[in-house]
């Protein structure tokens, strides 16, 4: 196996972005190496979700400055589907329902898009069926989910498990989980987190966006970043989450403000 000499997967420098002319990201900096798990926490409206969507290339967000290098490539120059095919995966906070499109077809088309991008032959329906059945166990999903329309009539937990199934299938280099824990009961949370942990390996990296320390008991991060007002204002180890849980965000914000003032 050839290992990238720098082993930096993602490098974000001074990234700024707008929604409808309103600046949301005001200078994000982040470096993620292979094998690492990062958590991004922060109050509502601090730019966490926007950051994930900007990385994935959502058309509603305009990048106004900064750079993002993903595996040595200028990520911002790529179309959203090219970013996905080259290894960026975003697990959505609110996965959409797509009536009429079977989950199985959807997964196969997504998988083959990536194969094609890698110059590999597309997998036919029979081989794919076998492949996907192996992956179902990772998120403890029943095969009956495959014949249903994408997310249609799925419970909140089933939708999130379906997201992780897609991650398992597409084997991204960088997976960004946007509040994957929201709306999950404890059993579903365990299944989802267990799935993510199985997929985590020394070659890939995971960025978890969350409000709560709860998820981080199951997916243990190497770093925790706190966002406020469109930037990361503090970075620490996993113990930072416990402190945030106990004391809230105010003290971090104050400390940051003092830091700027002094």
């Amino acid at each position: 196996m050839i290992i990238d000499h720098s082993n930096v997967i993602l490098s974000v420098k001074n990234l700024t972005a707008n929604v409808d002319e309103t600046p949301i990201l005001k200078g994000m900096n982040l470096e993620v190496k292979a094998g690492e798990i990062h958590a991004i926490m922060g109050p509502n409206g601090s730019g966490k979700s926007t950051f994930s969507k900007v990385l994935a290339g959502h058309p509603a967000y305009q990048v106004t400055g900064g750079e993002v290098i993903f595996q040595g490539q200028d990520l911002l120059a790529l179309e959203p589907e090219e970013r996905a095919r080259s290894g960026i995966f975003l697990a959505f906070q609110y996965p959409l329902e797509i009536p009429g499109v079977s989950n199985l077809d959807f997964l196969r088309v997504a998988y083959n898009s990536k194969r094609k991008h890698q110059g590999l032959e597309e997998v036919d329906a029979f081989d794919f069926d076998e492949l996907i059945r192996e992956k179902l166990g990772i998120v403890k999903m029943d095969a009956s989910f495959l014949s249903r329309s994408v997310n249609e009539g799925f419970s909140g937990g089933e939708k999130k498990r379906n997201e992780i199934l897609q991650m398992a299938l597409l084997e991204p280099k960088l997976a960004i989980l946007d509040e994957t824990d929201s709306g999950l009961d404890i059993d579903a949370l365990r299944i989802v987190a267990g799935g993510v942990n199985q997929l985590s390996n020394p070659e890939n990296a995971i960025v978890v966006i969350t409000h709560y320390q709860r998820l981080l008991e199951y997916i243990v991060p190497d770093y925790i970043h706190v966002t406020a007002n469109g930037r990361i204002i503090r970075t620490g180890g996993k113990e930072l989450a416990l402190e945030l849980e106990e004391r809230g965000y105010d003290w971090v914000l104050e400390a940051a403000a003092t830091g700027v003032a002094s």
Partner: protein
Amino acid sequence: MTTTVTSLVNQPYKYGFVTDIESDVIPRGLSEDVVRLISSKKNEPEFMLEFRLKAYRQWLKMAEPNWAEVGYPAIDYQNIIYYSAPKQKEKLNSLEEVDPTLLETFEKLGISLSEQKRLSNVAVDAIFDSVSVATTFREKLAKDGVIFCSISEAMREYPELVQKYLGSVVPVGDNYFAALNSAVFSDGSFVYIPKGTKCPMELSTYFRINNGDSGQFERTLIVAEAGSSVSYLEGCTAPMFDTNQLHAAVVELVALDDAEIKYSTVQNWYAGDKDGKGGIYNFVTKRGLCQGVNSKISWTQVETGSAITWKYPSCVLVGDNSVGEFYSVALTNNCQQADTGTKMVHIGKNTRSTIISKGISAGRSENSYRGLVKIGPKADGARNYSQCDSMLIGDNAGANTFPYIQVQNHTAKVEHEASTSKIGEDQLFFFAQRGVSSEDAISMMISGFCKDVFNQLPMEFAVEADRLLSLKLEGSVG
């Protein structure tokens, strides 16, 4: 999946050409003399002239309907040419005598009339402006007693059948456009399936408008005798003109005891340009009569063209246990307007009907479903199931549903379901984030949305319909 979609969506309307051919055209305008002239040009029997005059006189007393959810400038009925026919020999003995320009035109449209290249299991009646130019496989069909010819020929060769059934389902004064059609219709197809016969091949009529100033008024009549069955498909295209052309057709179906008629339409008239200039006004009356017990009539339509569509293929379920079905995909883009749906009129006992309507609106178009389910007092045990789904593409299109339900029998069961979904930025981003291009995403979502209807089409046309929709949605998102 569909790698061809990308190249397909970049094509303009490819049927928009005009054929240069000398035509026999009568002066503009409509009067009793014009009606007589059309009848005499066609050497019609006396009863036909009476039929036309009765219709014309009724039409004069009627007013153009204005209840549909569509808007257009007033039509000047005196500025339309009511008869236009490519000049050719009166009586054709074989295909070799058909003007090669006409054969070429149909070849270009993908409809091969020549002996070698025909679709092996589809018989075609090709109609150019007002007249039928060729009907294939007639001898082969005749062996089974199946009559498939232009309605003009039918009037001359089988006057008793025409007289018995023409206007029996859609009476001359049924509505404004049906009355107009009854007065001036110039040609169309006639199908007769004798008792106990299963028609050995698909029958199909291909309509082509060529003249920019003429209206197109065809008349189709299909009669299925007891125990017979037939599957019929119509297709249509027109050149691109800046002006609007009126197309007011009438289709009548009659199914006797245990007979089954399946009627499919893939409508691809010119829809006008992206600013709504030009295009066909498609004001059509289609109705099927399930006259016999256990008879069945099934309408499947894929409506993609026309500037305005006003069309309600209906079933009148008279025979006990008869079945009516309506499967529809109506797609509107740019400035197109569609007000379409069906009528299911339950008269006999234990009659059943199913309505599956899928409306797709993109651009600034307006798409309305309008449907009537009527259960008469004697229709014990009648059942209807209706499902009307709308899909909006982008933020500027409109969709409406107008279901009318009238039940006069307490044993009847009527169900209606409706849904609205959307293809927008978020849906496309979801697909893109999984590596799927917009073209493939739209194609998957549209195919999924239309699946229930496409499954009803004959195989080769289902593929065609699928491609046609992708083509029509060019640049409608993002």
